[in-house]
């Protein structure tokens, strides 16, 4: 059953990619952090809905693309505090978000839609319409 639907990219799940996972990222301070955002995926009758938490990402700084069956989201987070602000207490790091997913064949790539609300990206991955059975004429000699 899962084979015919979209699943997160297994490479990415196994942590084989360059990016760091989660909040435990240990990038040196002079480099940008790249986080794997938490996601939910749930099924509907028409397809799948994927939601990702991307606090700090706006429409202008979000890139969402499908290439070769891979859906990739990349969100840049601009620095919130103005220059010269002294960080007194820190519980989270600012950083960008990157995650990719392998789409299954029954996702209709052309009808994928997405919206961004309050820092949450929602991607709708519709099923390809079921094709009608078609009679094939067999000719005999």
């Amino acid at each position, binding site marked *: 059953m899962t084979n015919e639907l979209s699943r997160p990219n297994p490479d990415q799940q196994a942590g084989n990619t360059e990016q760091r996972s989660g909040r435990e990222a240990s990038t040196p301070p002079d480099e940008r952090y790249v986080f794997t955002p938490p996601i939910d995926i749930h099924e*509907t009758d028409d397809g799948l809905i994927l939601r990702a938490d991307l*606090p700090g990402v706006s429409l202008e700084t979000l890139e969402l693309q499908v290439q070769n069956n891979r859906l990739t989201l990349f969100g840049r987070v601009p620095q*919130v505090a103005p220059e010269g602000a002294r960080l007194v207490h820190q519980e989270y790091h600012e950083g960008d978000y990157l995650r990719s997913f392998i789409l299954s064949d029954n996702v209709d790539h052309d009808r994928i839609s997405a919206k961004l609300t309050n820092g949450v990206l929602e991607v709708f991955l519709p099923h390809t319409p079921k094709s009608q059975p078609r009679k094939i004429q067999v000719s005999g000699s």
Partner: protein
Amino acid sequence: MAVFRWGHSWSDAFSDLEREVDSILQSVNQTFQGLRFGRQHPPINLYDLDDHYLITAEIAGVATEDLDLAIANGVLTIRGGRQLDEGADENRYRRQERPHGSWQRSISLPERVSEDGLKADLTNGILQIVLPKAQDEAPRQIPVTGG
């Protein structure tokens, strides 16, 4: 006008002096003492700018109407939450990593924060709270009487 205080008794008045410089840091730490497990939600950062403090919090998915900020007795309380999406059958979740539910955080504010100019903004899932510092009072001479 209004100035937050941590202590209300006379005995606190002197220790306040010592704490003054780091007071905002300490007050945040105080808030954390009660929690031993895991990270707090939502995570916050605190910045010191010349004339104000800035608190930022990551609260993706929380709408303005589901967010509540309150100040009482020098404690800033942030309350909010978000639910799983209505109508979505729990059994139809393929993957669920995003936290949901309600949360609350209280932050003891330092002295010398002016309530009047407090501003909050929620954009793209980042909450920003600006806490203006109160203006320094002019030093006041205390007359000493002797016998």
